[in-house]
């Protein structure tokens, strides 16, 4: 699995300490009730750049924010999605529950104070939506 696209325009090594994970389930909020390419586009790919020129920030903009779906975090994750929906319903009412294949990419644990199951997914050069194993699309609101 290669990450040339990911590292082509920066000097950072974003996949340092990131791992392949084909075992755990992850979730990501969708804009609609079906999965689209834009749902897995990173900020960096869209042209959104961080304020600081630090690798930590750059890599976070080059990754896709996902949450590892474990029972103890389910309530917190869904509550984050519901909070977003409550403030701006246009941000979507569904999330995708999925697993990664061997060649999908690598995940890095990047917890935050209020988001303890947060990971960044660094997509490999061959990533497409088919690289994801869809388990379910869940309507949460």
């Amino acid at each position, binding site marked *: 699995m290669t990450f040339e696209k990911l590292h082509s325009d920066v000097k950072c090594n974003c996949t340092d300490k990131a791992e392949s994970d084909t075992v755990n389930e992850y979730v990501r*909020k969708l804009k609609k009730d079906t999965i689209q390419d*834009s749902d897995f586009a990173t*900020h960096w790919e*869209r*042209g*959104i*750049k961080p*304020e600081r020129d630090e690798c930590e920030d750059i890599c976070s903009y080059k990754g896709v*924010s996902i949450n590892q779906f474990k029972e103890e975090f389910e309530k917190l994750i869904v509550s*984050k*999605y519901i*909070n*977003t*929906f*409550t*403030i*701006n*319903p*246009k*941000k979507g009412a569904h999330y995708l529950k999925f697993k990664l294949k061997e060649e999908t990419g690598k995940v890095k644990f990047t917890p935050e*104070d*209020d988001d303890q199951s947060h990971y960044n997914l660094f997509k490999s050069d061959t990533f497409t939506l088919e690289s994801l194993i869809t388990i379910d699309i869940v309507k949460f609101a």
Partner: protein
Amino acid sequence: MKEFNLDKRLLIKSDLVEIVENYRVLHFDDFPILYIGTNRLGNKVIGSHLEEDDDTKTILTLHTILSNKEFHQFMNGKVSYLDILRNSKSISIAEKDYSFKLVKAYDVEFNSIPSDYLPLENSFCPSIVKTHSLVFSISLKGRLADINKAVADEVSKIQNGFTEFLEERINSLKGINLIPKAMLQPYAAGSFKINFELDLRQKGKKSSLFLQQAPIDKYIANYIKYISESFVEDKEIFKSDNVELSNDFRQLEETLNEVYDKAYIKRPDNIASSLKEDILKSTAKFEKLTEQVGVNFESASITNVVENEETPLAFIDEDFTQNFQNSVEEIEVHKKGMTVDETFKEYKIYIYHLNTDTRTGNAFIRNSDNEEEMSKPKIKINGDEGLEKTKYTESLYMSKWITVSAKAKKVGEKFKQLDIEYEE
């Protein structure tokens, strides 16, 4: 993005709605979905994410200027974001580039926001991970305070009242041997800000390691919040022991339990009852803050400061003051009863406000049980002779203590009203 009809909207000066200081994200989900901060004039601004467009590399957000009261109510879950927008006359769409820099701002009315993008009825402030500290700030707003000025005497009373309030709360923690000292920090603009830091030292040579883990900062912050948010609503529980305690009171009691448990100190017996007693005692000090509101500044906000982030704890304006003081009086009348002098007696007073037409005003008088504390009763001077060049106006203008003959109405030992017999 077309649904926002930006080309038909009125452009406004973007620096009015631009957040330049105190930026704080309240909810993040790929983008800052909800955030607050202050504009260049120091007004509170709340912002939320609407939409982004990869073709034009544009992010649209809603920015709304808040009053201090709205800010406090929103941050404490009393009003929803939808209600804020619904009642606001200063909503704007802030257009940003993909570096989150504000490019343009458009005036917008609530009714013209596409309904799909409106927050829901239950759009209350998301619960944020709160950390506490022993640093507090009181910001005065309105009138003199808006030009970064304050009357020295009023500032001094606020400082004393709040300092005593803080120190007394620590001293009332039974079995926790701490010496509190509230330290003043330099004043800051915005509009007029008084900063305090509560310094706690352990008594004796032996210091307890466990005491450092006790969430005293959280307890004091929640205590101030309780006095400001729940005390008026809870007044019945302070009148009698037979009234069921409210959830807000129980939560404060829970924090107090946590203080004892984490310090490995035995909880006092009947902790709810001693907490009730302490809250009642504290109202006298808190009243000192409320007494200053309304003349030279319109409101005071108490915040807890952690690493430059301020969490609002209390918002004191004239409405709050009225409700708070009425509730304290109601409880006192219930517990101590009201007495009225049957005959005229001599009292020493200092008149600080007097309308010579209506012959009514207010005066200071020392409480009969505690010379250190003063009441501020309403006064009425009988008769119809002019009050000019009398001892009453002399007291008013020369700040002089005078002896008057009056019938006093008292609640406990506090004076509430003086009917003064006119004397030349």
